[in-house]
């Protein structure tokens, strides 16, 4: 801590709690509170029930949860593969080419995701690229959106990777492909790991592009939450939201527990 006096430290903590706690933590607590309530007319919710969770973990909502998990897992794996590949390729390009690649992969982040959704809808609604109405158009949109983040985090990691390791490997007679699989990728593993978690979390929460694309038999959880609150079932929506939040956090926790040998460096 940079603040040394006791009084200064207290003041800093108070500012932190007053400014940041209401912004970051309290809204989430409110959702949790709402998910257990039957009624909310005063300052606090009233009536306690776990009934909303019965609805949130069965039927359509359960279906939506598995849909979201399947979409997020597929999209993350695809995004990580494509993003890491592109980042490795970009690293071997000259300055110009690398800038072009960086620009290409920042597009899905820079462009509003609703626009990306619309673009994919228009592009894949006619044969021979007819994906509209299938689950694949949702997975495709998620992949495009999260690949940008995978590319950026892997790019940053490659930049930090000391070239002396690949040079040492090359001096020992290792072909470039051998160096990639035995040295570079293992050393990048911690970053790939982190990128996977980021992609998964982003995909689990994606709503705006999904809204434009999802077919009736492939409704991800955020759409379910939106639909529930839209028709006035706020408490059910809150319960589904808590399920979404809990599942995402659990998966992220699991991913963060994966330690690689390289992360002990």
């Amino acid at each position: 801590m940079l603040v040394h006096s006791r009084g200064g430290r207290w003041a800093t903590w108070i500012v932190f709690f007053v400014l940041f706690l209401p912004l970051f933590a309290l809204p989430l607590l409110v959702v949790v509170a709402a998910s257990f309530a039957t009624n909310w007319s005063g300052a606090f919710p009233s009536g306690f029930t776990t009934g909303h969770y019965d609805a949130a973990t069965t039927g359509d909502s359960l279906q939506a949860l598995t849909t979201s998990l399947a979409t997020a897992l597929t999209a993350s794996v695809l995004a990580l593969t494509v993003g890491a590949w592109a980042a490795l390729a970009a690293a071997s390009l000259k300055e110009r080419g690398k800038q072009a690649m960086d620009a290409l992969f920042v597009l899905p982040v820079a462009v509003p995701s609703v626009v990306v959704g619309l673009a994919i809808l228009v592009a894949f609604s006619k044969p021979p690229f007819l994906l509209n109405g299938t689950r694949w158009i949702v997975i495709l949109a998620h992949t495009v959106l999260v690949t940008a983040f995978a590319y950026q985090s892997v790019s940053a990691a490659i930049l930090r990777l000391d070239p002396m390791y690949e040079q040492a490997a090359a001096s020992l007679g290792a072909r470039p492909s051998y160096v990639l699989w035995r040295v570079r990728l293992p050393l990048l593993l911690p970053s790939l790991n982190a990128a996977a978690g980021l992609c998964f979390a982003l995909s689990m929460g994606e709503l705006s592009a999904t809204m434009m694309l999802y077919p009736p038999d492939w409704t991800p959880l955020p759409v379910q939450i939106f639909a529930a609150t839209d028709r006035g079932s706020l408490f059910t929506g809150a319960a589904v939201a808590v399920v979404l939040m809990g599942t995402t956090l659990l998966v992220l926790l699991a991913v963060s527990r994966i330690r690689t040998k390289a992360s002990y460096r």
Partner: protein
Amino acid sequence: MTGIRFDGVSVAYGGNTVLDSLDLTVEPGEVMALLGPSGSGKTTALRAVAGFVRPASGRVFIGGRDVTALPPHRRGIGMVVQQYALFPHMRVADNVAFGLKAQKLVAKGEIAGRVAEALEMTGMAAYARRYPRELSGGQQQRVAIARALAIRPGVLLLDEPLSALDAQLRSGMLTELARLHRELPDVSILYVTHDQVEALTLADRIAVMDRARLRDCGTPQELYRRPRTEFTASFVGNANLLPVRVEPGYVSFGGTALAVATESVAVGASATLCVRPHLVGLGDGPNALRGRISEVQWRGSTHRLYVEVDGHAVKADVRELRETPALGDEVTLHFASEDAVLLSAGVGDG
């Protein structure tokens, strides 16, 4: 038996020449030190042999084969760098086995034996199961050397291998490297260093580099006793360089006549007289120089005196003095005629 030959090798980064037409031959089995200050081009020369920089012009030969256009992994070299570059995700044994596996040099069953042999040679056999992060700097350096030797390269490139070690470890490793070279007499070693002690101790020959150019090349004794350029004289052994005028049979330094061999330089010309500080004595004698003490440094077994003679600080390393002279004291220095080397001014410093 494999040697290295640089044939007019130049390297430039964005119009900035970092290595200027280097011609140098490392004989098979020879230890050649590339000695120079930072930015002298010595590491660039080594990287040109390894294949990590591409010469703008000139050719590099390893064992008579032109490798200029070959990628690093096809050059058959071993390399050890200052920061060791051990793979952090592999155990010591896997690090050492890396080259053997990557090149499929030996049958699977023989890898363990070759790894054990290389680790034995560097005294690291007991650490095979450790990860690099569990080793000290000196131990990591030994593993890096074992890794390079496991593939039995004809050429070993060492890039400031001891710079990251503390002084005591460094002298130990110097002894080790000398022993390794005795055990592997066929391996040619190119040893990049800025440390003259390392170069003088290990090398069969030293190539002195400065500002992208090769300035001098010869055995350590030649360079030390008979330097050919001012740069060599001052960089190797930190010699006194006195500006003198050549007269028939002697040279004059300020108003003092000094009797040294003058055949190499024309009478009347300006020249530089090079005398090693440890060959300068305190007290009266031949070639006496009178001056005032401007600085005294105690170095344990010796005293380093700086004596102001005709506006020049002359360095003298003398055996530890019982009574340290005071600053400003007037003293006389002397040196034997045969200990001085006369360099015609500006030779080799273009």
